[in-house]
């Protein structure tokens, strides 16, 4: 009896071991972690669009509506004709330039699919206010950029049904990566004629100075509370233009330009920043194109720009 008990104990121990290892093995194929995504949750995040039109929401946009939106939201960086301002990307031109010494890669000359334009404007533009456009606005701006590239007529209306049928001029000139494309060998001796080596020296004067310390810590000491509150807004929404001086935007260090504007009084400057302003030197889109900012946000940011050194 005693030995039988012992045997049973041993057996059940073995069984326990066997079961636990089976249980572990089963876990590896399926963990059951995570929550099922609902159709509504997926719809809210599923923004991507493919060349065949999959993913496009219902909507439409005309060239004339697109022109208005483009001038207000895009032209300050991309130029009224898509020529690009400063270092911001040009969107039009450059036809037949891809084999030239200085190719111009634009939507018209380079991009293979019109869907890419719709998708990118929708997901990432305007630069300071991504994912702020409604579908009809994206259709209209997309149509206008296609128009700037002479790809559609001025009475064209872009919709979810005709976007996939637009053939881009450069579509057939892309092919799948075929590297490795070089075939160097591991030569060890007399690999080339030393008398034929020509040394080309480096261009001077364009390398950043590594001895110069990066000024990463800014002093807040001299700033008013309003200005300190506006600093983060400036960085996320205003820096794009006011950092580089695009479209006539005064930069932080350009105190002369700010002084001129302040002659009309701070309230007017803030009013123009909130409501938009078209001046001689350039234009300020309402709230810098980021309509999600409150009036207070914009006011604080203006104070920061005026006060910051």
């Amino acid at each position: 009896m005693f030995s039988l008990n012992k045997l049973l104990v041993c057996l059940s121990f073995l069984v326990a071991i066997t079961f636990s290892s089976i249980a572990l093995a089963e876990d590896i194929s399926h963990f059951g972690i995570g929550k099922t995504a609902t159709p509504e949750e997926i719809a809210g995040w599923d923004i991507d669009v493919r060349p065949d039109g999959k993913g496009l929401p219902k909507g439409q946009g005309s060239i004339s509506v697109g022109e208005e939106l483009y001038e207000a939201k895009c032209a300050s960086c991309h130029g009224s004709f898509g020529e690009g301002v400063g270092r911001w990307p040009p969107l039009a031109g450059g036809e037949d330039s891809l084999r030239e010494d200085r190719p111009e890669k634009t939507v018209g000359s380079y991009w293979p699919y019109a869907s890419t334009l719709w998708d990118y404007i929708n997901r990432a533009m305007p630069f300071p206010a991504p994912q702020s456009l409604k579908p009809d606005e994206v259709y209209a701006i997309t149509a206008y950029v296609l128009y700037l590239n002479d790809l559609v007529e001025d009475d064209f209306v872009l919709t979810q049904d005709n976007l996939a049928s637009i053939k881009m001029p450069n579509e057939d000139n892309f092919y799948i990566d075929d590297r490795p494309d070089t075939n160097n060998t591991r030569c060890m001796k007399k690999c080339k004629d030393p008398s034929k080596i020509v040394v080309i020296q480096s261009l001077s004067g364009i390398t950043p100075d590594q001895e110069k310390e990066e000024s990463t810590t800014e002093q807040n000491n001299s700033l008013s509370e309003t200005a300190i509150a506006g600093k983060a807004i400036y960085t996320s929404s205003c820096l794009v233009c006011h950092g580089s001086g695009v479209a006539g935007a005064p930069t932080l260090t350009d105190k002369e330009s700010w002084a001129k504007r302040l002659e009309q009084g701070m309230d007017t400057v803030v009013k123009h920043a909130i409501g938009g302003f078209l001046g001689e030197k350039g234009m300020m889109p309402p709230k810098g194109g980021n309509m999600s900012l409150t009036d207070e946000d914009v006011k604080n940011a203006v104070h920061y720009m005026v006060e910051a050194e």
Partner: protein
Amino acid sequence: MSNSKKPESSKAYLAGLANQVPSSSRRDFLKKGIKFSTGLAATAATSAAISDNLPPNIPSWSKTLGSGVVSTPYGIPSKFEKNVIRRTVPWLTADKISSISMSPIQELKGIITPNGLVFERYHAGAPIVNPEEHRLMIHGLVDNPLIFTMDDLMRFPSESVINFLECPANGGMEWRGPQMEALQFTHGMISCCEWTGVRLSTLLAEVGVQTKGKWILAEGADGAAMSRSIPMDKALDDALIVYAQNGEMLRPEQGYPVRLFNPGWEGNTSVKWLRRLEIGDKPWHHREETSKYTDLMPDGRSRRFSYEQEANSVITSPCPENPWGQKGAYEIEGLAWSGRGKIKHVDVSIDGGVTWRPARLKGLVLSKALTRFSLPFKWSGAPLLLQSRAIDETGYVQPTLNQLRDIRGTNSIYHKNSIHTWQLQSNGKIKNVQLK
């Protein structure tokens, strides 16, 4: 100058000038270099004279107490290392929000890049993501679309790998000619970390990919909603969903709290701040895989989906930032890497590629990771043309610049992995040059 409108064009324009550098500006640079080294010597002499910290004196720090524990709860490098920082080339991009910085690889030791020095690449700045409110959604051609919290992701078995991360534009400023007078700017768009996370294949098994599912769209939660199409083969091979680097949670710059990581592939495919993976039957052809990150060839056609970072290497000592001094014994040291596997050999030439000798691979030699090579060398003081050449385990031999240009021309921007040349002058200084 109409060329100044566009980053690529102005870059190209500047590069094009390389062939006609006025000798006066070269003299300026030399003068500047000499001034700099005299400055260093002067500082060293002054501090030695006033410090009394050298033998036979007892240094001051040996005769006082230092700071106590947790005086710096999160440690920072010594104040004497403040020159070891990421840097950018301001004229390269329109602003700093959509831009790139370079790791100071001229100062780094071993193969691991410290987290604060990993190069940055943003398409719309680095967002501040609250991990409590961050979600990863996987949907599309799957049986069971799922949403994961960060806690969910960390419940899966984790894996750690040591892999490099490199921007395909690394070296891209030099297609037309040498123009960067520092290693940090010629090769600094690369870093190497231990990355920890869950295998993407594990998560894909969890949602149940349908047989038609051949591509995955990876999308970030940043303001660019950065997106790339990834083939299913890569996802099932070695792609990871990563939440930690070098032992701690990802830095915000690296995609905190979670990113995709594709070992050996161009960095932008390792989408940061990852919020969504959609399974589909075709690629999406989004902006960052059509307008950008495609390689324009001389015939006007372009390569797309050029994912792999081919074998590459560079000598990190000496380099413009690490010149030699007097003649004598030195170690020629450098880094090699390949997106296709392990580094098998690195050869070094001191005569511009006429003769080569094998260098020793030292430390860890890991697949798709930075690998150190070394060649002790007695320098006679003669000018040299120093080069390194990597060979990976597939047998691929790093090409010369001429071989690369013969096929790709000078306008493809990305994937410039050619043999690099440093000109060592008899004064020990190093110049970035190219050989014709």
